[in-house]
């Protein structure tokens, strides 16, 4: 038994060095050289200031911007320091209330739109940081954004068309639009 404990102790320490230090250090080294942008959070830079990450969503509620998925992170939506989903079941009254509030907000912000609402616009994402909405949700919001900005719908729609990310290689995942990038482009339009 004594020899087993000694062998276990030494092997454990060596394995800790190998898999806990050398392995991540090697990957970090290669990643920082080969993929520096991706490895450090795919940041959107403007000069020296960080305007967000291409991968992390931001909260929008102004009618002039495209709104993203709901987020239930605490203490404010899209708090990327504490990712979280709602984890509420289909029958949970909180879920119902939150979705209903979003429906109301969408309808109030543009009363002329009576089309059914794409479901991703009234549900919370898994991470609470989803950077994307579906193209359906983007098209749904085009008339509102155009009206709030007093520009032609066609122009906004073209922007959405341009920013749609298709399925990777044509078949992986779902088509989507990055709301942060879309809104940044919108501001550049004016």
């Amino acid at each position, binding site marked *: 038994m004594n020899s087993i404990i000694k062998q276990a102790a030494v092997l454990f320490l060596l394995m800790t060095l190998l898999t806990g230090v050398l392995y991540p250090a090697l990957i970090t080294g290669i990643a920082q050289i080969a993929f520096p942008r991706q490895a450090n959070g795919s940041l959107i830079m403007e000069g020296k200031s960080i305007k967000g990450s291409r991968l992390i969503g931001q909260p929008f509620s102004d009618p002039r911007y495209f709104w993203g998925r709901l987020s239930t992170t605490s203490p404010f939506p899209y708090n990327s320091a504490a990712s979280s989903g709602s984890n509420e079941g289909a029958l949970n009254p909180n879920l119902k209330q939150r979705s209903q509030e979003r429906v109301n907000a969408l309808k109030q912000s543009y009363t002329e739109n009576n089309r059914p609402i794409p479901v991703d616009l009234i549900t919370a*994402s898994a991470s609470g940081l989803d950077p994307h909405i579906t193209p359906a949700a983007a098209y749904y919001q085009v008339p509102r954004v155009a009206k709030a900005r007093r520009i032609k719908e066609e122009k906004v729609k073209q922007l959405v068309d341009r920013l749609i990310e298709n399925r990777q290689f044509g078949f992986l995942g779902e088509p989507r639009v990055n709301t942060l990038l879309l809104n940044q482009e919108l501001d550049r339009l004016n």
Partner: protein
Amino acid sequence: MTIVSWIQIGLYMVALVAFTKPLGMFMARVYQGERTWLHPLLSPLEQFLYRMANIKAEDEMDWKTYAKAALVLNLFGLLMVYALQRLQFMLPFNPAHMLAVPADSAFNTAVSFASNTNWQGYGGETTMSYLTQMFGLGVQNFLSAATGMAVLAAFIRGFAREQSQSLGNFWADLTRTVLYILLPLSLTLSLALVSQGVVQSLQPAQTASLMQPVTDEDGSKIGHQTLPLGPAASQIAIKQLGTNGGGFFNTNSSHPFENPTPLSNFLQMLAILLIPSALCYTFGSMVKDTRQGWAIWLSMTLIFVGALSLTLWAEQQGNPVLSGMGADQQAGLWQSGGNMEGKETRFGIANSALWATATTAASNGSVNSMHDSYTPLGGLGPLWLIQLGEIVFGGVGSGLYGMLVFAIIAVFIAGLMVGRAPEYLGKKIEVFEIKMASLVALIPVLTILGGTAAALLLYAGIRSIQDPGPHGISEVLYAFSSAGNNNGSAFAGLNANTPFYNVTLGLAMLAGRYWIILPVLAIAGSLAAKKRSPVSLGTLPTHTPLFIGWLVGVVVMVGALSFFPALALGPIVEHLMLK
């Protein structure tokens, strides 16, 4: 369901099959001590490790010594993770100044990562220092996975050997698993993941300005967002390959820094089932009859596809509550539709349901969507896959030895029905094997149902429940199923980071891992000592469609009989209420 969804699922299955034989063959060579193409590179390192630890790789161990070695090494892992969490505030690589983790939570996490469960009661980005993640959790991702695979190798030798007292050398099996299998695969996968945007950095978190400032719950203005970084990709690669599942960030692989693109998602999903699937071939190869391996593989796949179909269908139906508000949940050209609560846009319904099925079929437990927000029947699929005992592919090593124990039970029942002495792969199945196999089948049932019942009777258990009604029962049932079978995923609405759940789930994880490993090794020891009886007319062939169907039937029956009453109180009632 859209055609593209089926194409993605089909492609996934094709990729899985394509890797099964080459990787399975490679692993068989590793466990039989043969040279591989990686030996010129890694053999010196292997020999160096043996020399330092005073290990003689060719020294054979009987099953009791093998078990002792495995347990002692796992104990070291457990203590290390515990100590790191308690002391991280005074240790280096802690740029966010994380405090010491409370004792109950640290115990839970230490057990969780030693037992290959990777249940997470904590939020990664708000609790663990970089040092704890790398030195503690990262290391356990390798060692707990390698422990499972080593035990499997010993179990297979029980069938492959004749009149032998020994099952191999645990140190050698463990070391070879890490060096030749887990490390090379993890290196490749983590770099592929970084290329997609998974972070891998030792910098502290970055601060980004918000385009539109918001007010928080207290009414104060927030104009910035903290973007957490860390050495995530290296840990995520092994978390998937080793069926660990413990995420770097709180929301696991739904977090865009942990799983940013559909390609990173596909690779991670593939990694979840890659080794468990290939081990079926390894098994066939080591017992010199690959048909046996494929028969087991097919049995697993049949159950997998069944559960996947249920979850996929249920999630695509959407949530009737939302339809009432005027939501459009139809799949179309520009949206996947369906029940999108707790799902990410880039994954949609198909990739979320496929992941949920894969991660619960294997005892992985990482998530790319929140299982708690699934429709009742959509959540039933993953829950039941866990309850079957994590043997549909299952954890690396542990899944296959679990399934092989069920194969032993299946030949035993078949033998009873026709009045013949049961045999599996030429080994007589006798009283001792059946006693041990029954333990393997019954212990998880006991911890799951007993734990759930206890939690529902106690205030400490009930007050952590988030959702009202039957869904609340599902949350507790899921927690004990996940812990008792070492899965690690959760219906995360349950606030499990309380002393009550940290301790009870910790004990369930211990029982679910080590009380299974012991009887499994005992069976292996007993089988290895036996002679192989020659195939005769009376032998039940175990590679035929008949046996595959029989094995599936036994697994499903045991799972249904054990858990149907509990499931009826949770997801099934909830489904009826949803209409």
